[in-house]
């Protein structure tokens, strides 16, 4: 089953002379463990696609299914619930809470999921450890580099085993090599079965994805693919 299944999804804002077609009839399926990058110029619909995929917004036409559930059929509460359970978001700014350590930031996300504090703390450390971030677990965001903050933000976004990770320009403020460590982390998450959709302007980072789709004026304007088989992971010596 696909984690994300967008079927001829469209999003129109406003009406009459102010009518803006942000996304036009876009179909996109992303399977478990697949890493898809979305590219296109500013205003091409990347962020709208991410908002629809993550249930932050509803399509005005077409359908969006998340882990098999039709988001259009859900009410606000159901949508918020699906979002909380299935989707993690990462943005350009890490937005970690400055008064909490890296581990506490991750633990807080687990507590929001209903995990008890003691188990949440243990879970957070386990997750940071699995991502090679245990060394920064006890540090506050102000003591972390930009790249480390973003890595912790990714850990927070995937805490609780969410099935879809949506990343909107997560490497925007990072230098080339640090940006690669963030891409490496995203790909590690894919290896555990999480689906990742990355919106970016950075072709070097998009190239880390299994598949790259291009948007232009809200429409699909091409894609690399099909996604390679599991032998790809073996060939590249995927860590984890």
């Amino acid at each position, binding site marked *: 089953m696909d984690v994300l299944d967008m079927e001829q999804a469209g999003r129109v*804002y406003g009406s009459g002379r102010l009518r*803006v077609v942000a996304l036009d009839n876009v179909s996109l399926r992303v399977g478990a463990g697949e890493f898809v990058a979305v590219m296109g110029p500013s205003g091409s619909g990347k962020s*709208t696609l991410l908002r629809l995929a993550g249930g932050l917004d509803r399509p005005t036409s077409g359908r969006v299914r998340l882990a098999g559930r039709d988001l259009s059929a859900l009410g606000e509460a159901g949508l918020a619930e699906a979002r909380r359970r299935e989707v993690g978001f990462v943005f350009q700014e890490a937005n970690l809470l400055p008064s909490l350590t890296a581990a506490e930031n991750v633990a807080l996300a687990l507590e929001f999921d209903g995990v008890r504090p003691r188990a949440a703390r243990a879970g957070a450390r386990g997750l940071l450890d699995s991502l090679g971030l245990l060394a920064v677990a006890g540090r506050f965001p102000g003591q972390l580099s930009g790249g480390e903050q973003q890595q912790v933000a990714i850990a927070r976004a995937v805490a609780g085993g969410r099935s879809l990770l949506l990343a909107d320009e997560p490497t925007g403020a990072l230098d080339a090599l640090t940006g690669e460590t963030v891409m490496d982390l995203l790909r590690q998450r894919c290896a555990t079965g999480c689906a990742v959709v990355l919106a970016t302007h950075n072709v*070097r980072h998009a190239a880390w*994805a299994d598949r790259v789709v*291009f948007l232009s004026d809200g429409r699909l304007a*091409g894609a*690399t693919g099909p996604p390679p088989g599991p032998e790809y992971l073996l060939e*590249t*010596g995927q860590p984890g």
Partner: protein
Amino acid sequence: MSVRHSLLALLSGGAMHGYGLKTEFEAATGEVWPLNVGQVYTTLGRLERDGLVTAETEDEGQKVYEITAAGRDELRQWFETPVPREVIPRQELAIKLVFALRSGLADVTAVVQQQRLATMRALQDITRLKAAAEASGDLAGLLMLDGLVFQAEAEARWLDMCEARLARGNTAAGVAPRHPEMPPRPAAERSG
């Protein structure tokens, strides 16, 4: 690429046979640039002629090559001199775009988009090779592959720019638009 200096660099580590030089060169560069064995022997012949290597024939008739002092000087100079950048490299892609625009025989936007997909695929392939190099701790391979990545990135970004200019109806380099009677498309109609 300088096959000549690559061979000198390999020989600076010790004497080698021609075929060994070919395989060592390919392994050192992540097998991205296959080297014709004929090219290796032609180059070795020139290096011998110029006094940069000496060749000695073994009992089995195979030649062993060794670097000379002049060869080491040549190699040192190569490392100390920056690689000249062609002022205007003749690029098939740029020429294709120029004539796609001028001839009116092709949909230039489609040419650009098709090329960008091909460039992106190449970039994905190089990135996979990088992951392999990273996993095996091959630093020299990583440096070389990074170079290929940035070259491909430059092309992809240039193509983005081409597409944006074409979409705006802005004709680059003073070339007349194909359909001057067509009004430009409204540009700022969409927002993401």
